């Protein structure tokens, strides 16, 4: 084939990917493979020396250790596989809750940072600087100590009716029927999906042919609510009450989880506030001026002109701060919350299956990371399609 001719097909694609200098590349790849093989065979030999059979058979054996809090029904006689799943779910739980709360708090702080009020802006700046200049682990130790230093249940703090803070954790109101929470979440998810679909449809079809925002909102809230009510699940809410030395009724959020969540949220919100600020400031002043020249009021300039452009800067950075929060949740191991790393560590020490447990841990984090970035990339593409690229 003459050089420069149009090439296509899988063979050409591989050739293009491979590039030139086959000798050098083959040598480097061979070196890496050899290194991997040496380390691997050493590991297998050492495992044999210690009498450990390589492989994932240990996952079916009973784990034999307690896990402080679990989303699934877990007992020590259950398998390692279930224990690891419980740890993974705990990581996912704190990551999802953390990302949601940190986003809300971070956006509010970012807007406050940009406000014309010098006192408010200065306070937020001080907060951001303090959080960014101290190690996250130190912050987590601080929150952990704070939650442990709360008063006993008898002297529990009562900041809002039905909510108690004490050294056993945070007591919150809860549904009497355990299933109701799940149904509620499903209904909220359905409402969100309906609202998103409605706004997307409205945007796609133009304003006139579609129901108004109020109608979309009514459908998005009304339909799930009707489904929830007709499902027959009892929806009574029970308040926590002091009985004897502890609370009964309601639900308890453990001090470890509270400390981890608060620490991660306080840390991530500072990062997100900076991201929001830099995103809004990245929109050139000419855009503000042009919008003002069109006679738009300030609120609509923000919503119609500035935010859509700022979001293109914000969303990729937001993705990486979600990923950071997820990875930072591994610091749970230092303050006694049973996340994935903590369960992995216990399992590795008990079974000696270091290679397998480490592979599971890396695989789990990579999967969670891929899932988060895939979801955020999808959203990012949504943002980029509108307007010019």
């Amino acid at each position, binding site marked *: 084939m003459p050089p420069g001719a149009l090439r296509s097909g899988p063979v050409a694609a591989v050739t*293009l*990917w*491979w*590039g*030139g*200098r086959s000798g*050098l*590349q*083959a040598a*480097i*790849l061979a070196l*890496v493979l050899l290194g991997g093989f040496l*380390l*691997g065979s*050493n*590991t297998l*030999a*050492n*495992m044999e*020396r210690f009498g450990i059979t390589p492989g994932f058979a240990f996952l079916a054996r009973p784990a034999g250790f307690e896990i402080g809090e679990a989303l699934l029904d877990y007992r020590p006689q259950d398998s390692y596989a279930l224990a690891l799943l419980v740890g993974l779910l705990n990581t996912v739980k704190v990551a999802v809750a953390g990302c949601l709360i940190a986003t809300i708090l971070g956006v509010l702080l970012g807007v406050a940072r940009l*406000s*014309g*009020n*010098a*006192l*408010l802006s200065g*306070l937020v700046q001080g907060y951001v*600087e*303090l959080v*960014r*200049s*101290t*190690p*996250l*682990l*130190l912050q987590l*130790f*601080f929150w952990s*100590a704070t939650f442990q230093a709360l008063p006993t249940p008898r002297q529990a703090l009562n900041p809002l009716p039905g909510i108690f803070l004490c050294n056993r954790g945070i007591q919150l109101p809860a549904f009497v029927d355990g299933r109701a929470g799940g149904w509620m979440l499903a209904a909220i998810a359905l409402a969100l999906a309906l609202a998103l679909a409605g706004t997307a449809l409205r945007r796609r079809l133009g304003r006139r042919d579609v129901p108004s925002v109020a109608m979309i909102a009514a459908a998005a809230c009304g339909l799930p609510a009707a489904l929830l009510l007709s499902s027959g699940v009892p929806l009574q809410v029970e308040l926590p009450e002091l009985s004897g030395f502890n609370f009964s009724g309601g639900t308890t959020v453990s001090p470890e989880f509270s400390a981890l969540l608060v620490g991660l949220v306080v840390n991530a919100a500072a990062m997100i506030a900076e991201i929001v600020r830099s995103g809004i400031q990245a929109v050139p002043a000419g855009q503000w001026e042009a919008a003002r020249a069109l006679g738009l009021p300030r609120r609509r300039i923000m919503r119609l002109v500035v935010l859509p452009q700022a979001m293109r800067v914000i969303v990729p950075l937001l993705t990486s701060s979600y990923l950071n929060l997820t*990875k*930072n949740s*591994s*610091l749970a*191991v*230092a303050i006694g919350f049973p996340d994935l*790393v903590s369960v*992995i*560590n216990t399992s*590795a020490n008990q079974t000696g299956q*270091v*290679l397998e447990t*480490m592979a599971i*841990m*890396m695989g789990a*984090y*990579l999967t969670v*990371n*891929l899932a988060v970035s895939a979801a955020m990339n999808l959203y990012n593409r949504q943002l980029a399609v509108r307007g010019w690229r």
Partner: protein
Amino acid sequence: MTDGVLQSTQPLPPPLNRPPPRWQRLWAGLFGTPLNATVTLGCLALLGWAVPPLLRWTLLDAVWVGPADRCVDAAGACWAFIGEKLRYILFGFYDQDRQWRPAAADAILLALAGVSGMPLFWRRATLGLWIFGLAATLVLLTGGPAGPAVPTERWSGLPVSLLLAIVGLVGAFPLAVLLALARRSGMGGVRTLAVLFIEVTRGVPLIAVLYVATLLLPLMLPAGGAIDKLLRAQIAIILFVSAYLAEIIRAGLQSIPAGQYEAAQALGLGYWQSMRLVILPQALRTVIPSIVNLAIGLFQDTTLIIVIGLFDLLNTARTAAKDPAWFGFYDEAFGFAALVYLTVCVVASRYSLWLERRLRR
């Protein structure tokens, strides 16, 4: 005033968009609208609620000198505890009578970092300074040819934090440059290897890498081989940082215009020569602020070695409060550690901002 065509007899109107004076803008921001006034009062209330107790605790009611029993009765902070435990917090279990060694090591490491921050020293000779300085640090800490050896298990406190962070960054540099070049190379096999390493490393938390280094690395050595625990942590940190540093350097390489690559080629320079003499010096210069920010993050992240049982500054501060004679002064211990980290990081981030402005000029 000969011809009145171009001259106007009317006085000129004041310029339309002269900004109001500074204090006026400040006042409008604070109390200009009802909302702003409410927000300001809310902030003042928050400050009034938080600051006086904090001031009382840290300064007014604090105990500055004296034995532990005086602190137990006091309402404020017990800074006497920090005074008593300062040597332990800074140098940990290092031999009491030889603590001038870690102190000197700290001074050398900080001086190296400080000197490298000055654009005057961005030259090849600084590399020699680094090699000499790091060698001197290791000699000081290990005990060197003269004097009894101090095993790494007894290294603790500030020198460990500084050493892990600084050696982590410097050690990651060659690997990161190679990874960045490999990721941009036309050789698909090498590029894929680099992408795999970088993305996998950036996808897992540092704690996971530290566990792999402590638990898995010993198994990977030939039977009977052993590797120091601190060294394992250092290797983990170097590998972890190199992935992040590689991405920063890649961004720098991408910011160099194609004309520079072509000009280097036109001069007859080979790949390595053009990289070493033309591309990398420019690319690295543009990303120095990012590298400083990475270094700040790394200095904070070295605290994570607590989970594998090593003693950095945060861990010695924490364990100082476990001494039966001075039990429970965690707030003071964490406060002191926070102050050290805060000082270093604020200075470094101010430096990074200054550098960014300077490089943009």
